[in-house]
């Protein structure tokens, strides 16, 4: 690894660095980060996982939602150093090599996305719901997604997408 600084008469700002260990989509990682680095930026720039989007910077839009230890977190509000010792799941970890997650299928089947920018955050917020409540009502879904904004769809198809996925997950669980 190489870091090159411009030489301003030998003056280098001593950027403090912290070493953190965490898991992302099942893979263990070690990173050295500035304490002020946002988790969203660690994910996007540090790990190159650009499926986590940034919309608002104020924890309102939810485009940057990831799962931290299974719970939905807006990663623009969490510092990367706070992820030390935790497990992070992003949209890139939803599908296996051969198979889409039922939520991904549901969003496609029910036209739950248009521009696609809010979609990863929506799917992860929905995943957290379905992990807790496999048979949610429409109201449950609307409440669980109320921290995630979408400007394209009007939400009706997003709700349908989540219910589609819930039904499929239940059917799969029944078969198993």
């Amino acid at each position, binding site marked *: 690894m190489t870091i090159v*600084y*411009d030489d*301003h008469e030998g*003056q*280098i*700002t001593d950027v403090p660095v912290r070493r953190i260990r965490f898991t992302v989509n099942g893979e263990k990682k070690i990173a050295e980060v*500035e304490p*002020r*680095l946002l988790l969203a930026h660690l994910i*996007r720039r540090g790990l190159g*996982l*650009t*499926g*986590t*989007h*940034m*919309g*608002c*910077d*104020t924890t*309102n*839009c939810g*485009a940057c939602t990831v799962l931290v230890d299974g719970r939905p977190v807006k990663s623009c509000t969490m510092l990367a150093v706070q992820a030390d010792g935790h497990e992070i799941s*992003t*949209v*890139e970890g*939803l*599908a296996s090599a051969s198979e*889409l997650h039922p939520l*991904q299928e549901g*969003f*496609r*089947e029910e*036209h739950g*996305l*248009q*521009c*696609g*920018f*809010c*979609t*990863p955050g929506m*799917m992860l917020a929905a995943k957290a719901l379905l992990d807790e409540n496999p048979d949610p009502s429409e109201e449950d879904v*609307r*409440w669980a*997604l*109320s*921290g*995630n*904004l*979408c*400007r*394209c*769809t*009007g*939400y*009706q*198809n*997003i*709700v349908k997408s989540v219910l589609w996925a819930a039904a499929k997950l239940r059917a799969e669980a029944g078969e198993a």
Partner: protein
Amino acid sequence: MSALDEIKIGGLGASRKRVEDSRFIRGKGNYTDDITLPGMLHMEILRSPLAHARIKSIDTSKAWDIPGVHLVLTGEMMATRNLAWMPTLSYDTQAVLATDKVRFQGQEVACVIADDPYIAKDACEAIDVDYEPLPVIVNPRQAVADGAPVIRDDKESQTGNVIYDWEVGDKAGTDRAFEQADLVSKLQLHYPRSHPSPIECCGSIADFNRATSKLTVYMTTQAPHIIRAAVALVAELPEHMIRIISPDIGGGFGNKVPVYPGYVCSILASILLERPVKWIEDKSGNLISTGFARDVYLDGEMALRRDGKILGVRIHTDADHGAFFSDAQPSKFKIGLMHSAFAAYDIPAAHLTARGTYTNKAPGGVAYRCSFRVTEAMFFQERMVQAAADDLGMDQAEFRRMNFVRDEDFPHRTPFGFLTDSGQYAKCLDVGLKAIDYEEFRREQAEARKRGRLLGLGISTMTEPLGAGNSREYDILGIKMFDSAELKVHMTGKAIVRTGAKTQGQGHETTWAQIVSHELGIPADDIVVEEGDTDTAPFGMGTYASRSTPVAGAAVAMVSRKIRAKARKLAAHLLEVSEEDVEWELGRFYVRSAPDRGVTIQECAMAAYSNMPDGMEPGLENTAYYDPPNLTWPFAVYIVTVEVDPETGVWDVLKMVAVDDCGVRINPMIVEGQIMGGLTEAYAMANMQFITFDADGNCVGSNYMDYLLPSAWETPGFELHSEVVTPCPHHPIGAKGIGECAAVGGPAAFVNAVIDALGGTGVRNIDMPLLPDRVWEAITYRRDVSGAPPVRADD
């Protein structure tokens, strides 16, 4: 061989699952901020905290001292390159970086280019600007008051703050109509400033390569070719050395049409530094400085005959354009297509006057999910119609029905001169009334009223002109508004289609293939769609104003027909008959006298590269430029029922039905998605979403904590109806625009419903958004409530 099943191959009318979803659901979209180039630097903008102030000095020395900073740009430096100002899309000028003074809060003052965006932000904070505050103007009334400071003192010819006075229609005829009226109904309202606010903000990565002299810009633009032309003119670079690439866009809604200072600065920085420079706007920057919409005061009156016939309409609009007149709109019309108002009604005479003023607010005037201010036009229309019916004591539905343009009267010349093409207005209204169970609701409403419950029903209808041009009347900065499509059929019968439009979620990658499939019988899955790269896409005006299907979509159909015409010659050659003896069915040519003898479109494609007749130009490719003969005119009826809580002013939607007649639907699933999205924005504008300013010009609505957008929790459910289909008579496949109808027509339905619930109180108007405090005030004090800035203490 039998004809293909068009739905099975993904042709016209198939609710084909979207092609683009495959990447988006995997997090593999490619938005501007996802792109990283080798050696890329990062740019941040320093914005003005004040709405109006003279810049006494800017000290950037501390910013330069921060390690990792490569460049600090100020207006003074931009001026040495003649780039401190740039032309707008409405023949005005706009500051790129401020030199003399700042004219709105959030205006771009300086920018820093650094190794890392965090460093660039740090360095912005290290810039010291000395401002001398000036008096601030936040509405047109203040702008024209005696002694008002001249905001645009940079323009020698500008002595006040008026930008234009404009009129359209028949003044004398309208005056006569008002003389003959039994009753004159009046309405005044303010359509609040709104921001399109896609979740993805604006951004660009400029990459100037000294070795090739080529400038490549990846950017969030809905109109890449217009941007290329603008960059050529503004930066004085040769157009063939500019490549604009618009990758995936995280929503546009009109916000990503204009040229913004951030784009220009990133380009200049890349030229100066010879490295790629990325600028990604933050949300506050987006909300306070980029293209807003609306902010128009509408004052109108309607001349009525006692029996309910509308005789004439007068409208005056007072538009607040902010500090620079940078509306993205056709150049012949100063207030967009505001004069499309009342197009659905048979009204003999109408007259509109319009005034535009400068204020100390962000510039913009973009078409936010609408075709150039038709949202304001349709909103005023339906609010005025409701007020007139109430004044006459007539039923809301009957009053509309008796004044609608009738089915047999098309094409119909509107009083402002538009030619509407087709429609079944009364039928749409009937479908809507049945769906909402109109008579039953009116009974329930009367019953509820006796018990002190306030129920209301609001109707809104709309027809809007979508698909600019024709090129005779529509141009932006003189560039005529047409569009194009290029289709290349490869030898194995697979194909690529490119257009000058640019999808931002509308699903062009799915639907353009369906049009080709409909015209040629090539399965949609065998056709790839590409847009957004000016080096490869044919010239086009981009995607906004619901113009993609009416114009670029038509070009896709027309280029497919050119391909089919050539394929017919190839078929005749392969079948060894004359061209006149060849018949077409979907996907196949056959011999008229022997239908079993035929060749598929794929066999024709192979022949175009391997077995063409002597003298025929090889290949199976073509381009079509489509200049529409007229706009398309979809029609819709939106009906909402609400309950208002008299104690708190909170109102809830009980039911909403939408009846949209947008002609032939290419992909019904996608069309319904567009309608639901539009209805949600309509609900947002009626209920919570607005940008306002305090008396000092501070923007209230500069982030998502103040600028409220509805979530899944607040957004009501919608019931959509597609029973009425009136194909567009002049569009090649009979389609009309649809992307914006619901956002255009929807708001009045909600407001009409709340006003209806307040029946008997004498309240004629509450300005949007209908916040609980405003509704409560209207109920409690039985008075109209204005929402004009400066901000109300209660809001």
